């Protein structure tokens, strides 16, 4: 396997007359966590669909090296299957049933849902459901994790907890991750690199590396600084340093 599980080369995607992505190039290294943020309707989901192979680019090329698994905003679990059965979907290729059962139990333990194996998704809270989805996506040696606003349907505190949970899970089972979100804090807290997309047609408007080691706290100075830089770049916050500079000059 190469060190580049995901590589986009000048990828464009149009739907009829609507150009959603324009010549977007992006390389994600093995084990890297890249977050893509941008205004709503800017083509984040289109980008994920291209990354997952669900959709094909109008032009340009996409290279994918490894098994891709996606986590959805909500309702990605099959409601007719129990927690254990949903997680076992990620272990379908294992022919050995007892091995499949053992790994399912490991994953249930990993997301701390022991005792809920036989529950159905509708009997769980939204946060628990998303944890089951994460476990299913992390099952076996899946390489690339695509996250489509996985916590956006949750309340604020649950969202913060699940972020910690995701960081912890990735610490235990490292993966190459592409997270699409409109939550800039989420991006800054979780990712090694944040990519800010422009309005449609989406291009990379700004790219920011965050060096601090993962998992990190939401209030980690690097995270706070990154949030500020991104918000400034999007024209939502003012650049204090620059403003201070102007004052000094004036």
């Amino acid at each position, binding site marked *: 396997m190469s060190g580049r599980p995901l590589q986009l080369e000048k990828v464009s995607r149009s739907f009829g007359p609507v150009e959603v992505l324009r010549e977007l190039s992006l390389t994600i290294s093995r084990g890297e966590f890249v977050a893509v943020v941008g205004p709503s309707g800017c083509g984040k989901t289109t980008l994920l669909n291209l990354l997952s192979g669900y959709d094909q680019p109008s032009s340009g090329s996409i290279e994918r090296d490894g098994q891709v698994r996606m986590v959805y905003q909500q309702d990605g679990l*099959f409601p007719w299957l129990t927690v254990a059965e949903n997680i076992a979907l990620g272990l*379908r290729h294992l022919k050995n049933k007892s091995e499949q059962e053992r790994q399912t139990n490991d994953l249930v333990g990993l997301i701390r849902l022991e005792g809920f194996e036989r529950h*159905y998704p509708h009997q769980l809270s939204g946060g628990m459901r998303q944890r089951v989805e994460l476990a299913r996506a992390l099952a076996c040696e899946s390489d690339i994790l695509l996250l489509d606003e996985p916590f956006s349907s949750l309340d604020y505190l649950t969202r913060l907890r699940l972020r910690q949970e995701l960081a912890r899970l990735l610490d235990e089972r490292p993966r190459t991750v592409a997270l699409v979100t409109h939550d800039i804090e989420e991006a800054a807290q979780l990712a090694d690199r944040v990519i800010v997309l422009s309005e449609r047609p989406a291009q990379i408007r700004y790219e920011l590396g965050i060096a601090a080691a993962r998992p990190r706290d939401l209030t980690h100075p690097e995270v706070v600084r990154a949030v500020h830089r991104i918000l400034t770049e999007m024209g939502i916050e003012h650049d204090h340093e620059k403003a201070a500079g102007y004052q000094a000059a004036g």
Partner: protein
Amino acid sequence: MSSHRTPKVLLPLAVVAAIVALWAAVWATGAFHESAFPSPQAVLRGFGEELGSGRLFNDLITSLFRVSCGFALAVLLGIPVGLWMGQKLAARMAFLPIINFFRNLSPLAWIPFAILWFGVGDAPAIFLIFLAAFFPVIVATMAAVANIPTVYFRVARNYGINGIERLTQVMLPAILPQVITTLRVTAGLSWLVVVAAEMIAGRDGLGFAVMDSRNGLRTDLLVVEMIVIGSIGVVLDRLLVQLTKIQSVRWGYER
């Protein structure tokens, strides 16, 4: 538990008792001729008579057999057609108007042709029940398939569920709650139709028994038959309701 369940049994029983009392009171006024308005006592005697002769039981079995055949045929053919149409927009565009036409055409209007083509007996009744259930089953299955959230198919793709497994492990479980609801509705419809079909195109069955009692001016037996027909309809529905208690379909009724 028992204190919780007691009103569930007692309240409907009280309502039935009140209706019987009202019936007896109206009869006692003598406003209606005995032959047009049988007394509760006469109906009770009629029950004894029917139980003794076994005729009502045979008619009941005959009607249930016809409903089972016609309904099973409609479900076994209607669900695959619905599955197909739910996935193919072109098929929906082509066939939905004509299916809606037949769905809104009372199966009773087919009775003359049913007799011309199939004579009297089991065949015309089964044909009419089939017509009553087939089109609603198609439409409901089709709508359920067309409304399966696309995320389920994407998840299936992610985890390598393709081909026949996609049908058996994703589509069928996804539509099952709605299909069960449709089975309840169409089974009720079939039970209504079998009585009408047998009244005209039957030589036995509960519908024929109704007609026979009318011809013999036995209004007491008529009421006995009405009570049996209504009760069996309720029992059929209660049986189908058990399907909604399957653990893997509860999600369809609880959110």
